[in-house]
């Protein structure tokens, strides 16, 4: 076989050598500490954070033992106290005789740590080491112990920056998967909350976790999530954003069909409605599917507040969404095409503000909105300490100087400012709104209101065709699900929201017993 290989090309040969080496290296675990140590040394060559130490222990120093781990990943105190110390003590106090009982007794009664696994080949052993566990190997056995003594890592649980609310929990997810699942479990104390782990990414081996409530979530959707996640074949999963792009129904759509959140209470709410969550290690953003259009204007505050206010806020958000999409285009259409509908006095104001502007309203709008987008992007990218300089420059350039210099009209500045403010009201749709705004603007410049209408029609056709994990995106409006309208534009009081969203088609639909709808208060003595 070796001879045949030599005849092949050089690169392939090298490849094969590598393969050979790797298969050899990752094969069954050898019996002696020395060999294991050599293998690990080869696998982790060049990894300065790889730590391994051989011990000679037992009464006569006859038993050799190997501990290997990645530095900084493992809680060394726990490793010393709970693993190495008891093992050494045990071995020095115990009479040794032939047989494999050392390994067995170590596994069963010496190592204190509760999270303990067996590795049957080198592959498993290495996987354990790279995911932050310690490897313990004793001479004379084809097995090794993988002990979970991960050091607590990452930042503290704190309030998320991206999703703020007035009421409700301030806890946000962190980068550590297990912390996140624990935070969730804290809110839903129920064995029906299922967490299915899997690893994605050929290189990164990222832990990904599907989460749902059995009995509430639709099994079909859960299966679909499993299927789509398993289909992902990629090198690296660094964030849920990458997963999102792989599992979206329509990968080219401007509209998000996968939701994400950083907030525990929001996620718990979504799960209780029958949605499925996808956690990913290394990111505080958790995905939720199916994601419907209406969810973009829903916030957790809506459910914690009085229904009337919540309804008002919903309508306000929807208005803001429409304004940020349409206002710029409408303004251009009005000024360029449909002057006849402008009242006389407004007309004079408009004409006065337009006087002496060298650009057409369209060019003016493009310039101003580009300036705004630049400021916004710069605000995100730049280092925080120089933020103030940007806001001053932005305010002066956009607001004052451009008007004084006769580049833009006062009214255009107002229109762009309102558009900008409104676009921040509905964060999940900021990006789609940003692009749609340009499309509306171009359509308005060519066809006026007719163009805007055509684009609206096209967008609605697209939205109505869109699905998220099989659920129509525009539900409960298209298809009309009267039942689910209770939590759409109008929010009914929480005690009247007795059923879960029907469109998600759960098995168990009632949220509670009907009698508990409203607490009867007995005021009579």
């Amino acid at each position, binding site marked *: 076989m070796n001879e045949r290989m030599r005849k092949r090309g050089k690169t392939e040969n090298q490849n094969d050598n590598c393969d050979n080496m790797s298969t050899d290296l990752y094969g069954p675990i050898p019996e002696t500490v020395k060999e294991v140590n050599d293998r690990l040394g080869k696998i982790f060559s060049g990894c300065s954070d790889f730590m391994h130490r051989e011990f000679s222990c037992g009464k006569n120093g006859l038993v050799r033992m190997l501990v290997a781990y990645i530095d900084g990943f493992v809680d060394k105190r726990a490793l010393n106290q709970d693993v190495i110390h008891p093992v050494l003590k045990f071995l020095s106090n115990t009479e040794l005789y032939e047989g494999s009982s050392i390994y067995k007794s170590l596994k069963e009664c010496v190592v204190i740590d509760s999270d303990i696994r067996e590795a049957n080949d080198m592959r498993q052993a290495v996987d354990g080491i790279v995911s932050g566990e310690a490897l313990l190997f004793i001479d004379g056995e084809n097995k090794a112990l993988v002990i979970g003594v991960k050091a607590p890592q990452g930042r503290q649980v704190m309030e998320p920056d991206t999703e703020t609310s007035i009421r409700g929990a301030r806890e946000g997810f962190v980068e550590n998967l297990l912390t996140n699942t624990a935070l969730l479990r804290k809110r839903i104390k129920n064995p029906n909350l299922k967490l299915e782990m899997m690893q994605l990414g050929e290189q990164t081996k990222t832990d990904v976790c599907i989460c749902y409530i059995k009995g509430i979530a639709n099994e079909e959707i859960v299966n679909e999530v499993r299927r789509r996640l398993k289909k992902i074949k990629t090198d690296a999963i660094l964030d849920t954003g990458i997963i999102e792009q792989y599992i979206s129904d329509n990968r080219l759509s401007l509209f998000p069909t996968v939701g994400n959140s950083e907030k525990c209470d929001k996620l718990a709410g979504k799960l209780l409605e029958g949605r499925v969550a996808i956690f990913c290690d290394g990111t505080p953003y958790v995905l939720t599917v199916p994601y419907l259009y209406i969810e973009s204007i829903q916030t957790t505050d809506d459910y914690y507040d009085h229904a009337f206010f919540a309804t008002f806020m919903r309508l306000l958000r929807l208005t803001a969404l429409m304004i940020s999409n349409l206002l710029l285009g409408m303004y251009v259409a009005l*000024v360029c095409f449909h*002057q006849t509908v402008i009242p006389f006095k407004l007309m*004079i*104001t408009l004409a006065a503000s337009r006087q*002496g502007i060298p650009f057409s309203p369209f060019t003016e709008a493009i310039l101003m909105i580009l300036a705004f987008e630049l400021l916004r992007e710069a605000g995100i990218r730049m280092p925080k300490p120089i933020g103030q300089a940007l806001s001053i420059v932005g305010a002066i350039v956009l607001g004052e100087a451009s008007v004084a210099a006769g580049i833009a009209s006062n009214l255009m500045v107002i229109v762009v400012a309102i558009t900008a403010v409104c676009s921040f009201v509905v964060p999940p749709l900021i990006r789609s709104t940003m692009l749609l705004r340009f499309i509306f603007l171009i359509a308005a410049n060519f066809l006026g209101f*007719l163009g805007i209408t055509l684009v609206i029609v096209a967008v609605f056709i697209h939205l109505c065709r869109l699905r998220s*994990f*099989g659920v129509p995106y525009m539900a409960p409006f298209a298809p009309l699900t009267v039942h689910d309208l209770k939590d759409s534009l109008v929010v009914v009081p929480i005690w009247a929201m007795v059923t879960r969203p029907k469109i998600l088609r759960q098995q168990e639909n009632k949220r509670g017993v009907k009698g508990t709808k409203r607490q009867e208060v007995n005021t009579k003595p």
Partner: protein
Amino acid sequence: MMYKKDKKRTGRVLLAFLLIFPLLLTGCWSNRDLSDMNIVAGVGLDRTEDGKVLLTVQVVEPGAIQSTSSGNAEGGGPQPKPVFVESYEGETVFEAVRGILSIVDKKLFFSTAQVLILGEKLSQDGIEEAMDFFQRDNEMDYLMDVLVAKDVTPREILEMETDIDAIPAIYIKGTIENTVLRGTVKKTTLIDLIKDMISNGRQLAIGQISKAGEKEVRTEGLAVFKGGKLAGWLDPRETRGYLFAIDKIESAIVNVPVDKGKIAMEIMRSRGRVKVAFENGEPSMLTVKVEIEADVGGYEGSSSLESSDNLYFLEEKLEEEVKKEILMALEKTQKEYSSDIFGFGTYVRKYHPRYWKNAKEGWDKIFSKLQADIRVDAKIVRTGIVRNPLKEGK
């Protein structure tokens, strides 16, 4: 779970495209910038001695308006004028509208025109031909007010520099709104005028505008037309009588002379109807019925208002006064102008179509000869917040 991709998708896309495409063939194409337009505030239309149409436009200079209203005119130079007025003669209205572009810098935008002022000469020659353009053009605002200028040319009125409003057209429109509340002018919008021109059995009547001073106009009175041609005028009181009859009074102050003083009555609600009574298939009598609700607005006399008898007496006096006004208007239109601006003919056409068929042509003559029966029913509802006048009698 997953939905199947539609096989007929391309077909549907094609169909959608075919349905959307015709929308692009509609007229609204032109993209024109607001700053490339002259905003027309008022339009004047007259006829020259040699029979040409004389178009006058009053154009707003928005920049000047802004600087005068916000008071930040730069420099010490002469203040820019808020409006300018230009005239052009043409064979037809449309020709004049296009021709005037040769003396102004930007296209004219007529949709903002607030008033249309018709000259006396044009009115005497007949306005129907001239109005066709205003009805036909897609940019005309049907709600602009139409007025006929008396003893003054439209250009003189449009050129008038008032101190009251920067834009004279806005000032004129404002005076119309005010005079409507006094019930002495008929507010005629373009759409009203067009409707009246089409309707059978009613002659045109358009509000009147005249010069009140160097810098003021007065919108009072009525221009009476016959067959589309100016026949004569009604004075403010006659106009009010006419408006009472045709149910166009929104509010009015009627002075009623009572024993030693005058009582000013404010008409709060008024309902008028005109009919023609028939006898043996022939019209025998014109009937006008008016119901009025009025408040006592001011009592410049000395009787008490406490007893209901007094109020009944007042009601009778008010009825008499209104009746007199209606009669004045009716007699003038019958005797002097022989023009049925009340719309008695419309009533006949509606309820006696067979008779109307034959009498249509000569209706104005028949109308002039008929006797009139005017009935006014007045009610006094309130006397303000006091009952008796300050200067109380014994």
